């Protein structure tokens, strides 16, 4: 958790250092329960393979949530997200071993906008592959 970022302290090009977020089968089970999305491909390897997937895959929204964490942890508790969008370009495969997988997220301030808002471009990778594209958040800073 960082402190509070202010609009005046940020410039276009400001980097948000990468954070590697773990994702395990247990993460997905918990996310199923909390989100209400029990799609079987997120918890059942047999069915995932039967429908042509390499293994159990993470919910896209779990990956998006990790990108959101990077933004809100960087921006601080008084910041408010006003826009957040991603395209899911590749699946995050979550193998059975306890180590699971990792989603590495980093960001960069793209531009400063009116109304104390800043636009942030995000990058997310798992197993060396980009899992999000066109990932962008706008946050209002104090």
């Amino acid at each position, binding site marked *: *958790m960082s402190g509070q970022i202010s609009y005046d302290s940020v410039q276009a090009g400001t980097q948000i250092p990468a954070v590697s*977020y*773990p994702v395990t089968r247990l*993460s997905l089970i*918990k*996310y199923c*329960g*909390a*989100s*209400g*999305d029990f*799609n*079987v*491909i997120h918890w059942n390897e047999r*069915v995932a393979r039967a*429908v*042509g997937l390499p293994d159990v*895959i993470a*919910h*896209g*929204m*779990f990956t*998006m*949530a*990790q990108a*959101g*964490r990077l*933004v*809100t*942890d960087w921006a*601080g*508790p*008084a910041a*408010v*997200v*006003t*826009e*957040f*969008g*991603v*395209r*899911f370009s590749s*699946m995050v495969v979550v193998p059975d071993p306890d180590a699971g997988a990792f989603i590495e997220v980093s960001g960069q301030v793209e531009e400063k906008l009116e109304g104390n808002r800043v636009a942030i471009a995000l990058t997310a990778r798992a197993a060396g592959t980009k899992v999000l594209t*066109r990932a962008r*958040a706008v946050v209002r800073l*104090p």
Partner: protein
Amino acid sequence: MAINREYAGRVFPASQPYEVSRVKIAEFAAAIGDANPVYRDPAAARAAGHADVIAPPTFAIVISMAGSGAALADPGLGLNYAMVVHGEQRFEYTRPIMAGDVVTAQVTLTDIRDAGRNVMLTTSTEIRTAAGEHVCTAVSTIVERGA
């Protein structure tokens, strides 16, 4: 089973009111691994200038899915959910979702289109309070992968 294209443009009835609780927000934050106090501790949230505990940005999907899930499960649409992956997601927020909110989700199935062997469905879900205040619009594109 093929997707019924006649569903494109359909506006579904608004969902039943959804009551956002501190407990549900904390559960969701724990599930995404986020320890941020503004999602659990009312005092921390107020100290940061929020009226109560706020929800993580992607929590809006829980409410929008309460509406779009019902719409996409409509047997007349013919969607095979095991073949569905998420293609794209966008949220536009008027303000954060907060503990104590009572909101409804109004889903429009805006588009059904082919992409090679896949079919892409886009929904736009408006999340509003019982009083009609706009909180968030969630635009989702899901992909039914071709067999």
